[in-house]
């Protein structure tokens, strides 16, 4: 397993990664989630051995990797844009690490076939990277990284360069592939969807520090603070009276702050909250509303399709307790 202890990486005087400790058990996928510039890519490079540590340690199965150069760590790094070798064909790219290990060419051919099959690119062997689409390149990069069954695969925003549909599909594929291969993976991303789609565990990073980590649903249910909540996809954070009113309506004990997802308030004639509809937008699954709730303010809400809700209408709302999170903060 991978263990980071008090890792600090500096660029000049500024710490890009500040005192980060993380653990990643074998076979698990850990996502490091954070806005751009938070130091997550640097962290990944430090694990790969591409950035020297200012202090702290990176170890694998208890062995400190400080003296181990990148190529001897047995980790595979997949860059954001794939970084395929432009002068090599797809098959040669995938076979790269195998050839480094002088694998017999018959076995190389079989393995390349398997891997291209795995990433859904059978028959692409002789293409040059320049002729591939972004998604195809990422798949080749993934196949290349998986070729020698690395003990840890490092993924740098593997899906962010792709369009939405492709991202969704590839995310599913990637998760299946990682699980099928039983690969331990460390993933950095700024996209919580990507993190949720791929990871078992989550670490949230901000300003070079890890502010929260845990199992993905734990983190998702209990964000440590407002910023984290917003970054995890919560739409709004209510405080004081507003929070108390909503919690009361949900039948929960009072708390100082609560984070709401956009679907936390649902139009329901039996609901305890009264609100005026400001705007309504129809989506394929439900109607998304912005409403003004008395004593709470402007918040998001949803209504089932066919509810015929229009701006200006007065509606009643109930609270979906699975779609809110209490924040452990005080005034």
């Amino acid at each position, binding site marked *: 397993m991978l263990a980071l202890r008090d890792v600090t990486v500096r660029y000049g005087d500024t710490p890009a990664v500040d005192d980060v400790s993380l653990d990643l058990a074998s076979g698990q996928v850990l996502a490091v989630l954070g806005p751009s510039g938070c130091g997550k890519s640097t962290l990944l490079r430090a694990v790969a051995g591409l950035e020297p540590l200012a202090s702290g340690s990176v170890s694998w199965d208890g062995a400190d990797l400080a003296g181990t150069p990148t*190529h001897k760590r047995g980790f595979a*790094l997949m860059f954001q844009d794939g970084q395929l070798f*432009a*002068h090599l064909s797809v098959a040669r790219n995938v076979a*790269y690490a195998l050839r480094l290990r002088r694998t017999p060419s018959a076995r190389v051919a079989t393995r390349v076939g398997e891997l291209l099959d795995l990433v859904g690119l059978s028959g692409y062997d002789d293409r040059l990277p*320049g002729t591939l689409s972004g998604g195809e390149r990422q798949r080749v990069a993934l196949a290349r990284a998986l070729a*020698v069954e690395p003990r840890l695969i490092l993924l740098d925003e593997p899906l962010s360069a792709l369009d939405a549909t492709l991202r969704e599909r590839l995310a599913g594929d990637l998760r299946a592939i990682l699980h099928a291969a039983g690969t331990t993976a460390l993933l950095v991303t700024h996209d919580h969807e990507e993190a949720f789609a791929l990871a078992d565990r989550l670490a949230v990073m901000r300003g070079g520090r890890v502010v929260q980590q845990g199992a993905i649903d734990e983190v998702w249910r209990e964000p440590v603070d407002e910023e984290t909540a917003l970054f995890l996809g919560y739409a709004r954070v209510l405080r004081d009276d507003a929070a108390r009113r909503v919690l009361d309506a949900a039948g929960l004990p009072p708390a100082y702050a609560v984070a709401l997802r956009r679907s936390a308030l649902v139009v329901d004639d039996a609901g305890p909250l009264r609100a005026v509809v400001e705007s309504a937008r129809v989506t394929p699954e439900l109607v998304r509303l912005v409403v003004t709730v008395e004593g709470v303010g402007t918040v998001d809400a949803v209504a089932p399709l066919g509810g015929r809700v229009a701006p200006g209408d007065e509606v009643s709302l109930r609270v979906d307790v699975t779609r809110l999170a209490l924040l452990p903060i005080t005034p």
Partner: protein
Amino acid sequence: MRRIAALVALAAAPVLVLGVLFVLPVAGMVAEGFVEDGHLAPGAVLDVLARPRVHRVAWFTVWTSGVATALAVALGLPAAYALHKLALPGRAAVRAALIVPFVLPTVVVGVAFRQLLGEGGPLGFLGLDGTPAAIVCGLVFFNVAVVVRTVGVAWESLDPRPGQAAAALGASPWQVLRTVTLPALRPAVVGAASIVFLFCATAFGIVLTLGGVRHATIETEIYLLTTTVFDLQAAAALSVLQIVVVVALLALSARLRATPDPTAQRTVAPPRAVRRSDAPVVVATLLLLAAMLLPVATLVLGSLDVGDGWGLDNYRALATAGEDQALLVPVTAALVTSLRTAVDAMWMALLVGVTVSLIVTRRSHSVAERRVRSTLDGFFMLPLGVSAVTLGFGFLITLDEPPLDLRDSPLLVPMAQALVALPLVVRSLAPVLGGIDDRQRQAAASLGASPWRTLLTVDLPVVWKPVLAAAGFAFAVSLGEFGATSFLARDTDPTLPVVIFRLIGHPGEHNYGMALAASVVLAAVTAVVVLGVERLRVPGVGAF
């Protein structure tokens, strides 16, 4: 077809320049050999090619140049890495110092080498004097800077991430070099190697001085046949042979340079701190530096030797015309002429070189277009590979009538020098320009940038450092050029190498000392200018 027409129009100016200054003279001189009594008589020329001596000479040229090129690449690559990728203290100065041999007059270096390698010299025990090994050493000495610079600049702007990706896949540093870095550097390495080969194959003074008269190359043979024997047929035959060899080499080099996809992300990574694992590279670089400085040190010591001790007398004498008035102008005046000539040669070479580089690196849309581009590319390399003797005499007999009455023009010297520097400029810029993703230009254009603005905002920032390096190179080539210059320079304003040659050709201990002092000054000025040119930064462009 429209694109090809536009291409030809853009290329017209440089092609015309090269046509007048190169093709016409060489063709004129070769024709002297082919035409006998007003009739075309190719038979006699072809007979020459059957002579065993010609075969021997051609083979000797090819193998010495080949070995020297291989050595220059082998020694130059580690230095290119160490001096362009590692944060070594004083690396800019070392880079400038390595270019010094490039400008030293061959006759002076020849004497310095012989003082080292000769029977009584400190390295005399090696028994190299007068052997092909000495010639190869000399050729490497003069040309290793070409490899260090052209490859170093390309290396500097190489995206480090593919290499890191390879390392992350388990490639050792050596494997990264072999499988990722060198393939990416191949255009630059092959380009540098072909330039070095051409310089070696047409080397003149160094072959004569170090090889003694026993070893003839095609170039020395052409000189001998033209000036001493006046056998123009044989000279023409060898010139044609030389052109054929050069064209074949250029075709080969173009093939080797071609990469499936030259586009690469260009970044200028800040130089990396030196680690213990860099020791072999650093040591190799230091050894190369020491080997390069040894002959230079001999010169410096010689220039300070005033007979009965050490002193600066030889340097003080540079403001005079030498012992017994050996010179018409003091060395200081010649230095000024040299610098002014070099400025001209530099801008001429850059102007034409940048245009040519842009032409040959734009993405082709058809096979025909690509052929036109690669033919042009090779065409502009030709001047390096063709005998300066043939070219020089060709100037005299073809550029003698209006409107091309150039043989008395003071600009002929910088023009000839620019012609020599041109391939260096093109080979420094082309790999980098070729690496720019065309979509960036398209993006700029789509945002409303004119072609000129696109050039400034997309191409220039990437190519700025290579342009500076090429400028320094062109400047150095001009400062050191002797063959064409001595042939064309006018006595009233000789350049420094010409003056040095004069000094060393006159008896008198002081003239010899002055020649050494003047060489040291030439070397120092060159190093300083090259260092300065590289420091030139347009804010925000060079710094990235």
